[in-house]
């Protein structure tokens, strides 16, 4: 949501202490506050507008009177009043306009700091499930989640997904209009429906993480803001739904990948492949936590795609290097994952792992089958993987050709730079 700027509504300068406090509470709490307001008033737009008005008010009042002891509670109280004012104005303007839910003034007052800091509150959970409702497009789910729960600005989200802020704004308002007019309730699915609704929440969070960890477009090799936000929300979801092994699996998967973040980009800002990474740089606490989480998840004996991917990442995490990796176990896990997902991307990764066990020729045969199948047409990692195996077979001309094909398909600067370097290093072989 758009953060209040350095000036108040009347253009007066905001005192630095007030601005800092506002910035801080906005980053940390705006998602939770908007979730609470949206649940109370069952209207996301109203919730956001009221909170923004409250923030503008805060900039003035806190500059004059000092920062209140509990800034989040102050904002909630004022935002609630602003929302009621708006509703009342609407009523007098049009008596026929009936809101589906009349807010109750006795509604519980938010007491920040009571809940565990990382656990998503009930209102945030409801809002997360609303933002990720399968009746919305994935791109809308992602934008809404980051905007309402992540407290990111439209500019930040637009930059992360390489769309113009106005396109993103339209995407958000279309999604909010659908929530309102199609009657997507601000409700948690019941236990019976949780299994049906959870996958789209997990897919959205994973997409946010991946866009941060391996941006599909643009200049930057990493977008840490997206990784951090995806991790924060997934951690909060895992704390709120501890009985769901796939949530634990996704959190483990993110942590195990995130652990590699420091080794994933070199000093020159270039991407480093897993096999070439300096594993000393891996973030140990994330590895340890991710490994422990995946073990706990697997012990529930309700295995799913995220747990399997996390298990693969954990096997990599245990190894001292590419040679010391238990590739046989990785192939076994990919077999299960392929069976569960039937995804051609999984088949591609499995082929690479098979090449480590049975040799590059075996991997290459699988890649050729995949290429013939056509499902990965346009995906640069297929020719890039072929190039790698061809080079290991010393078929250098073909390898260079495959790398050139990959280069023509790659869309992110980091991917393109990586392929170009490999070609320069080994031009015709």
């Amino acid at each position, binding site marked *: 949501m758009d953060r209040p700027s350095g000036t108040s509504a009347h253009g007066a300068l905001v005192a630095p202490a007030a601005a800092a406090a506002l910035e801080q509470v906005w980053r940390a709490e705006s998602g939770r506050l908007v979730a609470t307001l949206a649940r109370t008033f069952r209207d996301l737009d109203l919730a956001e507008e009221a909170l923004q008005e409250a923030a503008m008010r805060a900039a003035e009042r806190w500059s004059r009177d000092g920062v209140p002891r509990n800034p989040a509670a102050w904002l909630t109280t004022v935002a609630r009043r602003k929302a009621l004012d708006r509703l009342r104005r*609407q009523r007098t303007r049009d008596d*026929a*306009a009936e809101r*589906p839910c009349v807010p109750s003034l006795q509604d519980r007052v938010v007491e920040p700091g009571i809940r565990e800091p990382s656990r998503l509150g009930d209102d945030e959970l409801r809002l997360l499930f609303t933002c990720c*409702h399968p009746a919305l497009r994935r791109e809308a789910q992602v934008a809404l989640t980051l905007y309402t729960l992540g407290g990111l600005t439209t500019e930040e989200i637009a930059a992360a997904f390489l769309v113009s802020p106005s396109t993103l704004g339209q995407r958000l308002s279309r999604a909010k209009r659908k929530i309102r007019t199609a*009657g997507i*309730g601000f409700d948690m699915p019941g236990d019976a429906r949780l299994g049906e609704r959870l996958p789209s929440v997990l897919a959205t969070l994973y997409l946010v993480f991946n866009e941060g960890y391996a941006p599909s477009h643009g200049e930057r090799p990493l977008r840490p803001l997206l990784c951090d936000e995806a991790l924060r929300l997934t951690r909060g979801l895992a704390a709120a739904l501890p009985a769901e092994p796939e949530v634990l699996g996704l959190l483990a998967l993110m942590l195990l990948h995130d652990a590699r973040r420091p080794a994933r980009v070199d000093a020159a800002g270039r991407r480093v492949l897993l096999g070439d990474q300096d594993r000393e740089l891996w973030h140990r606490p994330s590895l340890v936590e991710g490994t422990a989480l995946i073990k706990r998840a697997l012990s529930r004996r309700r295995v799913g795609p995220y747990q399997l991917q996390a298990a693969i990442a954990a096997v990599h995490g245990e190894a001292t290097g590419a040679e010391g990796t238990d590739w046989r176990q990785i192939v076994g896990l990919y077999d299960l994952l392929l069976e569960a997902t039937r995804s051609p991307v999984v088949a591609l990764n499995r082929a690479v792992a098979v090449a480590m066990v049975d040799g590059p020729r075996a991997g290459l045969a699988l890649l050729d089958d995949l290429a013939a199948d056509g499902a990965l047409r346009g995906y640069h990692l297929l020719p890039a993987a072929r190039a790698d195996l061809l080079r290991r077979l010393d078929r250098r001309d073909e390898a260079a050709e495959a790398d050139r094909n990959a280069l023509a398909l790659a869309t992110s600067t980091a991917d393109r730079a990586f392929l170009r370097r490999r070609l320069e290093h080994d031009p015709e072989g």
Partner: protein
Amino acid sequence: MQYLFLIYADEVLESEMTEAEMGALLQNYGKYSALLESRGVLRAGEGLQPSTTATSIRVRNDDTLITDGPFAETKEQLGGFYLVDCASLDEALELAAQIPSANYGTVEVRPVMDYSQLADD
């Protein structure tokens, strides 16, 4: 909130059903309508004659153009509808999923316009 369930299915597939299969389908629709009624959400619901019986009409500059056939020739055709009154999209989707033709066709769930809400915007 009111929702319209638009039931689309492949008419060729339906025309190739045996008498027993068609009988079972109609029986399931009977049960389904009874379910909607028992939940108190049913406002209307009908099945339609095949799209080969449809006539489309357009008026442009006072000229009326009448053509044989449905609005769009697609693989799945509109074959029936229900109008229901539910608490939320989730309830509507839960009910729509139980429509017998959802097993082989597609059900589109559309909120019905609420004119009092429209005045708000």
